[in-house]
């Protein structure tokens, strides 16, 4: 029988995200400068590498524009596609006063918790992205949030609006300067998806070991609208807790969350997702995969069927790759309508030794076999088309980290 240490016993009782003491971090600085070009931005090799690893590449795909929050400063380039806008939120609020009424804290409750209150009270900047009616953006639009100061606080507020019939693949990378160990990252993101519109949001996180990260995301989807949320945690923060909330208000609307987490010793990742299906014949799917190298992972998902013919499936699976660490899978379903059809599955275990032996019998070395199995486990069908090859490499790295004995 495994003997639990005092710390592990304590964790059993106090299982959850750490209470954040804001005084441990540098205060939220004023919103910085805003530059509509990257010409004045000087990044060193490490910074470029960190941004590349979360999918942000300065050279590729200029058409849809780019947006970088570099500490408190914002650098962005204008899209070359008519009907696509990227602006710092503070500027957008000045240009388009209606944003405040229609979108600003209309999906996220500003009083949800201390983090949303922080973003609200400090009137944080971030991106405002709007794709006008029926405009379909064929290549991904890249944004990134980059933290630069040890034990600093980054707090931002993003709004994405897809008008009826529009489509967009938004790739957002969040990273810290590679030498930083800690900091606090708070991000409020509100997505509005119109009738027949489709938003694919791919988020990649790569953090230092003591970062505390609190994203607060909410999405509202109209009739026939589609929301796909992909999340990769390549290098987890010391403590991250997020539970993006989607309201499928429209008839025939759908949402799909796909989450891939690599967890390491002394990290806590509580990655959830809640979808409220209030639109008739709406559907939701939540797929979560975690590979644990010794940290604590909580995979939660709550799908709420509150309309006729709502359909939902939640699937949480985890691989334990070391003898220490915790994975807790909490796939949740809540039916609030008799015609809702909902299912769930969850599986946690080691790598199957038989699969490793099999691949070895085909000629792969043991570690090659393990990496291939992990790569397969993490392959949950996220469409990587158009994503930077650096991001592909980053995802592969998650599998290659498997330097352990699977016996």
């Amino acid at each position, binding site marked *: 029988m495994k003997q639990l240490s005092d710390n592990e016993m304590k964790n059993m009782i106090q299982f959850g995200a750490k209470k954040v003491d804001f005084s441990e971090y540098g205060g939220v600085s004023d919103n910085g400068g805003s530059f509509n070009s990257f010409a004045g931005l000087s990044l060193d090799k490490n910074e470029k590498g960190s941004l590349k690893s979360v999918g942000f590449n300065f050279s590729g795909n200029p058409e849809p524009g780019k947006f970088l929050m570099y500490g408190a400063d914002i650098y962005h380039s204008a899209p070359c596609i008519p009907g696509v806008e990227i602006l710092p939120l503070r500027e957008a609020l000045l240009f388009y006063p209606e944003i405040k009424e229609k979108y600003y804290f209309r999906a996220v409750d500003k009083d949800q918790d201390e983090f949303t209150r922080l973003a609200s009270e400090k009137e944080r900047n971030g991106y405002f992205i709007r794709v006008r009616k029926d405009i379909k953006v064929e290549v991904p639009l890249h944004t990134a949030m980059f933290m630069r100061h040890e034990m600093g606080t980054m707090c931002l507020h993003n709004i994405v609006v897809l008008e009826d019939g529009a489509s967009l693949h938004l790739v957002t990378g969040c990273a810290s300067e590679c030498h930083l160990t800690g900091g606090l990252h708070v991000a409020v993101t509100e997505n509005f998806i119109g009738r027949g519109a489709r938003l694919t949001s791919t988020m990649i996180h790569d953090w230092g070991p003591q970062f505390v990260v609190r994203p607060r995301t909410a999405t509202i989807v109209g009739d026939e609208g589609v929301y796909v949320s992909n999340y990769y945690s390549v290098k987890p923060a010391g403590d991250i807790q997020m539970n993006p909330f989607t309201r499928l208000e429209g008839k025939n609307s759908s949402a799909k969350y796909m989450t891939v987490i690599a967890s390491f010793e002394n990290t806590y990742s509580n990655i959830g997702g809640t979808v409220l299906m209030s639109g008739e014949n709406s559907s939701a799917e939540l797929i979560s995969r975690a590979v644990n190298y010794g940290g604590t992972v909580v995979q939660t998902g709550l799908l709420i069927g509150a309309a006729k013919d709502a359909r939902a499936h939640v699937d949480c699976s985890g691989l334990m790759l070391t003898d220490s660490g915790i994975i807790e899978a909490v796939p949740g379903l809540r039916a609030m309508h008799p015609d809702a059809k909902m299912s769930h599955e969850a599986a946690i275990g080691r790598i*199957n*030794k*038989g*699969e490793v*032996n*099999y*691949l*070895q*019998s*085909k*000629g*792969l*070395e*043991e570690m*090659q*076999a393990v990496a*291939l*199995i992990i*790569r*397969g*486990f*993490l*392959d*949950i069908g996220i469409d990587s088309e158009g994503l930077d090859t650096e991001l592909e490499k980053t995802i592969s790295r998650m599998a290659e980290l498997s330097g352990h004995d699977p*016996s």
Partner: protein
Amino acid sequence: MAAGDKEILKGVNLTIPDNEVHSLFGPNGSGKSVLISAIMGYPEYEVTSGEILFKGKNINKLSIDERVRLGLGISEQRPPTIKGVKLRRLIEILAPEKMREKTLEKELQQKFDMEKFLDRDINDGLSGGEIKKSELFLLLMKKPDFLILDEPDSGVDPEHLKNIGEMINEILQNKDSGKNGLVVTHSAAILDYIHTDKAHVMLDGKIHCSGNPVVMMEQIRKNGYKYCITCQNRNGRDCI
């Protein structure tokens, strides 16, 4: 050979000379699959005494992949499903440089009707015959010096058995080292399509007798393994 405290193979003595393919018959549970698991080095079985020699080298302590690199290759009877790993990806990793030539690979894919399996997860949802084809196609990419086939005919309908036989013959051909292998089968159906030089019958963890594959196959088809059990030619002697 033992699994835990249980002895499974009891003093097996089997020699397959260069340029020969042998067949190994035996009823279910006689130890055939355990023998080839031992040859491949699967860790659930322990060699308690004796040697496994390949190319003159004792391979008892080699890992599975080291044995494969030395020239062994196996087609398993019931390989595992590996979710998320496409057959195409495994082929890309395994195929030696010459097989990366797209035309040659394509030619083989078309010849054996493999294209439809390449973008599926390994062994996921395949029928018995499709699993055999997938296994053999992977071996075709490697062309091992010594081919081990574990029940290549089980779960395969007669219509596809010929195709399986053609794939096996393709693997055995064009080897500088000559045709060399061991075909494990309890129904012997595959032997209508491939040639083996000698056959052995395994009963209760021992090689019971050896002989001409055609003669032995006929006896087994006609009288079943009960004939072998009552046969006087025990202790590995030739079957008459």
